[in-house]
C-alpha cells in the first residue's frame, strides 16, 4: 500500500516537473523573440516614416531613408531565388525520385550538399568575388551578389525539398504507376503538390537566410547606397546597411534600429505571403480532407 502511494506521488511529481520544463522552454523561446522585437520597436519605431521607406540615404545613412537599399535587397533576393529554385528543386526531384541514396551519384551529391551547407558565408563571399565578380567580370553587382547567395541557398532548398518528396508515401507512386502514369506525370500532378508545404518551408528558410546575409554580399554586391540602375549596378543589402550604420557611422544608431525593424517586418511579411501562396496552390491542386 505504502509502495503504491509512493509510486503515485512519484508519477505525480514527475508529470508536474516535465510540464513545468516544457512551459518554461516555450516561454523562454517566446521571450527572446519578444525582447528583440520590443528592443527594435523602442529604438527604431520613432524613426520610421513614409519618407524613411522611400528616400535614398544621405550623409552615410544618418539622414534620408532606405528606399534604394530596400530595392537592392529585393533585387538580390529575386536574383538568388530565380537562380537557385529551379536548380534546387530539379536536383531534389532527381535525388528523391530517380537516384537511390546508395548509388554513387546519390552519395556524391549528398556529400557535396552537406559540405556546401557547412561552409561559412564569408567563404562564399570570397568565392563569389573571385568567380562571379572577377572571373566572369560581373564586378560588384547585384547579379554577382544574387548568384553567390544562390550557391548558399542550394543546400537548404535541395535538402528540404528532397525530404518533402521522400515523405510522400510510396503507395501513391505505385498507384500512379499501376495506372500507367509516367514518373514525370506522377511527380508533377501528385508528388509535388503533396510535398508543397515542405517545399514552402524550405523556401522560407532560404529567404530568411538570404535576406539576413551580410558577409557574402560584402564582397560581391558591394555597398554603394545609391539607387541601383540595373542588375549590373552595385547595391547595398539591408543587413549590410545595418552593419555599416552600427559599426562605421557614429550617430547612426537610430536609423540602424529602424532598418533592423524594417528587415524583421519584411521577413514576417514575406513568410506570411509565401505561406498563403503555397496553401492556395496546394488547395487548388490537391484536396486533402
Amino acid at each position, binding site marked *: 500500500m505504502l509502495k503504491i502511494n509512493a509510486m503515485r506521488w512519484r508519477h505525480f511529481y514527475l508529470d508536474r516537473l516535465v510540464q513545468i520544463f516544457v512551459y518554461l522552454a516555450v516561454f523562454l523561446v517566446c521571450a527572446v523573440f519578444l525582447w528583440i522585437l520590443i528592443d527594435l520597436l523602442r529604438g527604431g519605431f520613432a524613426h520610421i516614416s513614409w519618407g524613411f521607406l522611400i528616400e535614398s540615404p544621405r550623409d552615410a545613412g544618418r539622414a534620408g531613408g532606405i528606399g534604394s537599399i530596400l530595392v537592392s535587397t529585393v533585387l538580390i533576393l529575386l536574383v538568388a531565388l530565380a537562380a537557385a529554385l529551379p536548380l534546387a528543386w530539379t536536383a531534389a526531384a532527381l535525388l528523391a525520385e530517380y537516384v537511390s541514396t546508395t548509388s554513387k551519384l546519390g552519395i556524391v551529391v549528398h556529400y557535396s550538399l552537406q559540405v556546401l551547407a557547412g561552409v561559412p558565408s564569408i567563404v562564399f563571399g570570397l568565392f563569389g568575388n573571385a568567380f562571379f565578380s572577377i572571373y566572369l567580370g560581373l564586378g560588384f553587382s547585384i547579379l554577382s551578389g544574387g548568384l553567390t547567395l544562390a550557391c548558399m541557398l542550394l543546400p537548404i532548398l535541395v535538402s528540404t525539398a528532397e525530404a518533402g518528396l521522400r515523405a510522400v508515401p510510396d503507395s501513391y507512386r505505385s498507384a500512379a504507376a499501376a495506372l500507367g502514369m509516367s514518373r514525370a506525370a506522377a511527380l508533377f500532378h501528385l508528388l509535388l503538390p503533396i510535398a508543397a508545404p515542405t517545399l514552402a518551408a524550405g523556401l522560407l528558410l532560404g529567404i530568411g537566410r538570404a535576406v539576413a546575409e551580410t558577409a557574402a554580399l560584402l564582397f560581391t554586391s558591394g555597398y554603394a547606397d545609391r539607387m541601383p540602375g540595373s542588375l549590373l549596378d552595385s547595391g547595398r543589402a539591408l543587413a549590410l546597411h545595418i552593419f555599416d550604420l552600427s559599426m562605421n557611422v557614429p550617430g547612426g544608431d537610430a536609423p540602424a534600429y529602424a532598418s533592423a525593424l524594417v528587415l524583421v517586418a519584411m521577413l514576417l511579411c514575406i513568410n506570411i505571403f509565401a505561406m498563403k501562396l503555397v496553401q492556395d496552390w496546394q488547395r487548388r491542386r490537391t484536396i*486533402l480532407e
Partner: protein
Amino acid sequence: MNPNKPITTQAISGEESGFTLGPLQMGPVCCDPQSVIQVENLSLRYGDKTALDKVTLDIYRGCITALIGPSGCGKTSFLSAINRLTDLIPNCVIGGRIRVDGQDIHATESNVQALRRKVGMVFQKPTPFPLSIRRNFSLPLREHGVTRRSEIDAISEQVLRDVGLWDEVCDRLDTAALSLSGGQQQRLCIARALALNPQILLMDEPCSALDPIASGVVEDLISRLRGRYTIVIVTHNLAQARRIANYAAFFWVKERAGQLVEFGQCRHIFETPTHQLTAAYISGARG
C-alpha cells in the same frame, strides 16, 4: 458448349447488373479455359533474397483466380510481376517469361504503360489520390490521351455506376476522395482501374483493410466483374477465395523461396487437394 457464344449477365450472376463498360469477354467462363496470362519458370529475387522460384502457371480468361498461401510466400511479388510493378523496386531481378495475350511483357518492344493499361491493379490499402473524386479519374485518363471533359465525365460515371458508387458520390464529385469511407475508397480505386478499360485486374488483398460489411460489398462487386475481366486476386481469407474464385493457386515457402505447390479448379483445391501441404493449409492444420 460453343466457345464463341457470348455469356450473358444472367449466366454469370443470375441478377440484373447495371454494367455499362467492359463488354463480356467471349468464351465460356471456365468450362473451356483459354489462357490469357502464361507464366513460365518465373523466378524473382530482391537482391540475394529469393521471393519466387520457378513458378509456372496459366491464368484463364474471364475467370477469377485466387492466390492463397501464408504471408511471405511470394503471392504479392507474383502479382506485381504481371504488370511489371516490380520495375519500381531497384534491386529486383526477374527470370523466366510472362506472356500477356501472347506477348512477352519483358520484350524490348513491349510498352510498360500500355501493359499497365491492359492490366489494372488494386492494392490492399485503398490508394485514392488526395485530389477530388473527379480528378482521380481525369488524371490517369488524361495520361492515356482522353482529354475531352465530356468524355472523361461519361467514363467516370459509367465506372462509378459499375462499382455501385455513383449514387453515393454523384452530388459530390468535386470533394475530396479521401473523405470517403474505407470501403468507398476501395471501390473508387476499383472504378479508377476500370476507367482505363483493362482486360485483367490484379487485386492484392482488396478486402483485408476493410470492415466485414464493406468487405462483403467489395467481394460481391468482384464476383460481378467475372466474365468481363480476368481477375487475379491475392487473399488470406480462404472462405472468400472459396466463394468467389474459379481457380486457386496455392503457394508455400520451400527452402526459403516461394513456390507454387498446387494449381487447379477452386473446387478441387478446397475439396480434394492432391498435395498434402495444401490439405493441411486448407484445413487449418498448418500455415
